[in-house]
């Protein structure tokens, strides 16, 4: 990771204004977004949007032609180009031909994408941003930190300072007063401007219309007052039919700022008259800039379903810590990472793609139904394919692919870490490893892994069998979780088998783009796990369960190893996570959990892969309730704990504050036990609690259930 990038992260997480404003906003946003969508079937709505947009992405050329024809029939001039340089030249040409001296702009990401402002300014044209946030950052000489709220990182004191300097007048920090000042200052610019430049939220092929949404009312002025209007629209904004604007207009304001509708929506379908009776000189530029290449890419065409609401930023546990500047100059957050990789270049996304912790929160709320985490993984995969992997990682993954060597090293590490181990934790590591135990202790590697302990367990005779997939953490750090699983399953009449050849599920490799390694792991595991004849393959680690039930298949698909897919499917069909299996057994009357009377209070943390990838959140809660636990829900119970596999090792400065927030929310409930279904989350949260010193027991659901059985 580049030092410069690490420094920008350091700067951001230590900027109290930024993290404060973003943190507060993200908390309020979650609540308000739900309120804004009340009475609306979000799944149905986003189904419509993704259909409309994916159709448009597949018919870009046809829709561009149709749009051009229809807009030109109503007096607009439409200019189409692939090249951002030609966009700039065209705008300059129109400006020169009409003697334009000043331009007013309403917010447009597309103009930022092509760095239009400095280009026009170099040609001697004065360019004024009129969106308040954009004007603030223009005055500050900065770039937007958020796609919808560009100046969210700045305080009123900083804004007051900027305005005072610009207007040569000492201003207070009273926000309504500052807004008034901006209104007055910009009003003159509007009235004097020779040209207005806008973006476009939607472009309708059927009618040649462009749709503009604002809250401030600046787009209305930009499109009404100057005699020339240029709208710069990326071709991904095209939709086929006029009626297609409805679902987008319905979702965009709700997802962006939790509003039912923005204050102003303008649908412009042709040139309108000016006050002197002349017709508006209206130009619409349809810009490609690699969007058609994206449409041809089987994976990334999905990203064209984006409606630019930025909800993926608003719910991202990483974005709310680092803000937009870390992501680069233009598009930020989850979708921004993808757009940067395309509109700029893949290489530019090298560092920022690593910011994604793969928690899946964005995928849940995306109104375009884009699997953002999956696309970021695909960027990782392509980067690794193009540039290879750093030597250290390469070495690690070649070890992971050799089970004997890998497991041998884990055993050796148990001994090597001894000097740093206190009880069950590694609390401090020396030198360059010190970051890893900053704010979180690591679990000590078990002296005797689960695979060894398993051989010593005597199981009662059972009529059904299940293969247990341990995964590295249960096998080598938390073997007691494996033992607890056996206890519970035995009670329901299920004998547990543990094929020794099973190895790492490959998730760490996959999440780092090392798909070949992941495929190697997948192959070994499929062979090992299908070697036994059992009804279930059960895992108490959601990340492993997702690997077994989904990712083996998609890894093979990505690599074109189609011959391996049928076996992978066989494995997937049998794979089940621990809580779902136990819930099933309870429902079938094969297992009764409540064997003691006392009730204990706990809180429950939803693990990302279980909640969002597998959509499981009720089963563990129901089991825990039946086992005599009373659940006190914590705030943001399904927000990532900051573990993210190796993420916490690569970006500890981000992982640590995410963990702190989680610990805070756990402590706020006042209970003494926190349950979760993922050993990775246990590792992160238990380690955090250990350093925090709070008297809270961090437990895997399997342990809590087993402890209630005789």
């Amino acid at each position, binding site marked *: 990771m580049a030092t410069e990038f690490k420094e920008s992260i350091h700067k951001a997480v230590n900027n109290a204004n930024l993290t404060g404003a973003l943190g507060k906003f993200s908390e309020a946003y979650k609540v308000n977004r739900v309120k804004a969508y009340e009475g609306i079937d979000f799944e149905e709505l986003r189904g419509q949007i993704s259909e409309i947009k994916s159709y448009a992405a597949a018919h870009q050329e046809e829709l561009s032609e149709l749009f051009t024809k229809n807009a030109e029939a109503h007096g607009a001039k439409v200019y189409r180009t692939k090249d951002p340089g030609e966009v700039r030249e065209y705008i300059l040409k129109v400006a020169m031909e009409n003697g334009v001296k000043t331009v007013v702009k309403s917010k447009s990401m597309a103009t930022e994408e092509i760095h239009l402002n400095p280009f026009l300014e170099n040609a001697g044209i004065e360019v004024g941003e009129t969106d308040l946030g954009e004007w603030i950052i223009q005055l500050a000489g900065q770039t937007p930190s958020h796609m919808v709220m560009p100046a969210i990182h700045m305080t009123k004191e900083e804004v007051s300072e900027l305005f005072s300097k610009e207007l040569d007048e000492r201003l207070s920090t009273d926000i309504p007063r500052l807004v008034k000042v901006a209104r007055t200052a910009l009003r003159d610019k509007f009235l004097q401007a020779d040209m207005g430049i806008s973006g476009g939220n939607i472009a309708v092929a059927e009618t040649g219309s462009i749709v503009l949404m604002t809250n401030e009312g600046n787009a209305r002025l930009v499109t009404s007052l100057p005699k020339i209007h240029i709208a710069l629209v990326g071709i991904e904004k095209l939709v086929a039919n006029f009626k297609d604007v409805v679902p987008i207009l319905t979702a965009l304001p709700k997802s962006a700022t939790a509003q039912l509708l923005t*204050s102003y929506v303008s649908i412009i379908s042709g040139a309108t008259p000016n*006050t002197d009776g002349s017709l508006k000189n209206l130009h619409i530029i349809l810009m490609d800039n690699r969007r058609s290449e994206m449409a041809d890419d089987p994976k990334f065409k999905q990203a064209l379903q984006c409606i630019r609401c930025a909800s993926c930023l608003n719910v991202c546990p990483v974005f709310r810590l680092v803000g937009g500047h870390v992501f680069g100059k233009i598009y930020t957050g989850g979708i921004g990472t993808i757009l940067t990789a395309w509109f700029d270049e893949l290489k530019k996304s090298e560092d920022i793609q690593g910011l994604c912790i793969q928690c899946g929160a964005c995928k849940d709320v995306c109104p375009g139904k884009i699997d953002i985490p999956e696309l970021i993984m695909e960027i990782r995969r392509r980067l690794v394919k193009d540039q290879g992997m750093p030597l250290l990682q390469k070495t690690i993954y070649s070890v992971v692919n050799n089970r004997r060597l890998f497991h041998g090293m884990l055993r050796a590490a148990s001994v090597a870490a001894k000097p740093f181990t206190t009880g069950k934790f590694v609390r401090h590591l020396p030198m360059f490893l010190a970051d890893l135990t900053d704010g979180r202790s690591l679990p000590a590697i078990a002296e005797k892994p689960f695979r060894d302990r398993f051989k010593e367990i005597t199981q009662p005779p059972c009529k059904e069998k299940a293969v247990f997939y341990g995964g590295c953490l249960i096998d080598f750090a938390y073997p007691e979780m494996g033992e607890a699983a056996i206890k519970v399953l035995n009670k329901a009449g299920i004998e547990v088998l543990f094929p020794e050849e099973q190895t790492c599920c490959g998730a760490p490799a996959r999440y780092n783009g090392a798909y070949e390694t992941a495929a190697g792991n997948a192959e070994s595991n499929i062979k090992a796990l299908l070697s036994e004849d059992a009804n279930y393959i059960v895992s108490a680690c959601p990340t492993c369960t997702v690997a077994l039930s989904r990712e083996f298949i998609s890894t093979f698909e990505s690599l074109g190893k189609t011959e391996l897919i049928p076996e992978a499917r066989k494995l997937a069909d049998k794979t089940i996570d621990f809580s779902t299996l136990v819930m099933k057994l309870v429902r079938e009357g094969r297992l009764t959990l409540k064997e003691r009377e006392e009730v204990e209070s706990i809180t429950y943390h939803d693990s990302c892969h279980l909640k969002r990838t597998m959509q499981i959140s009720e089963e563990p809660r129901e089991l825990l309730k039946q086992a005599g636990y009373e659940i006190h829900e914590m705030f943001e119970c399904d927000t990532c704990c900051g573990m993210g596999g190796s993420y916490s090792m690569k970006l500890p400065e981000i992982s640590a504050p995410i963990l702190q927030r989680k610990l805070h929310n756990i402590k706020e409930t006042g209970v003494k036990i926190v349950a979760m279904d993922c050993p990775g989350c246990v590792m992160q949260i238990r380690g955090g609690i250990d350093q925090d010193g709070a008297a809270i027991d961090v437990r895997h659901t399997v342990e809590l259930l087993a402890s209630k059985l005789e």
Partner: protein
Amino acid sequence: MFQQFRIRAEGVGAEVHRFATNDAALDFVIRFLQDEGLADSLQSTALWAECPFLKLVDLQPLLRLGGLKFEVTRELAAEARFGISQMEWALADTGSLAQNSTAIEQRLVSSLATIHIALVPTSGILPDMPALLSRVNPKECAYLAMITGPSRTADIERVLTIGVHGPERLVIVFVDELGGAN
């Protein structure tokens, strides 16, 4: 639908009134202008854009008001405190108003003035956006404008502030007689 509209529109800071007759609505507008300081001086004038309502009422009382003009120019609109226009539709589910604003005068009075007074026939209330868009033919409407509450921003420290580039007050006056009841 009127009740739903009112709740939604007031929820975003608009002021909603309803009158049975054109005359009652006219009385209200005149009183409102006077109470809010209408005068023939800078930042106190009113501009009334051409609309069907003006053809249905007795203009005499209006002509007696100092500071009210019916000729709409950029310059006059820029210095007006009040902008008055008739909007054709209202959307109950979002509390929005909509108008074919192809004529620039309609946009000037509703975007440059500090207070926008919008007259709306009560029968123009539609349930939602699909109902509106099915009635609008873009071929005959080069500029469809939708307005939901006053102009707003939260760009400084996420603090909601009213009145940035557009009006800081939106006063909606429904008139039943202007087109039946709903």
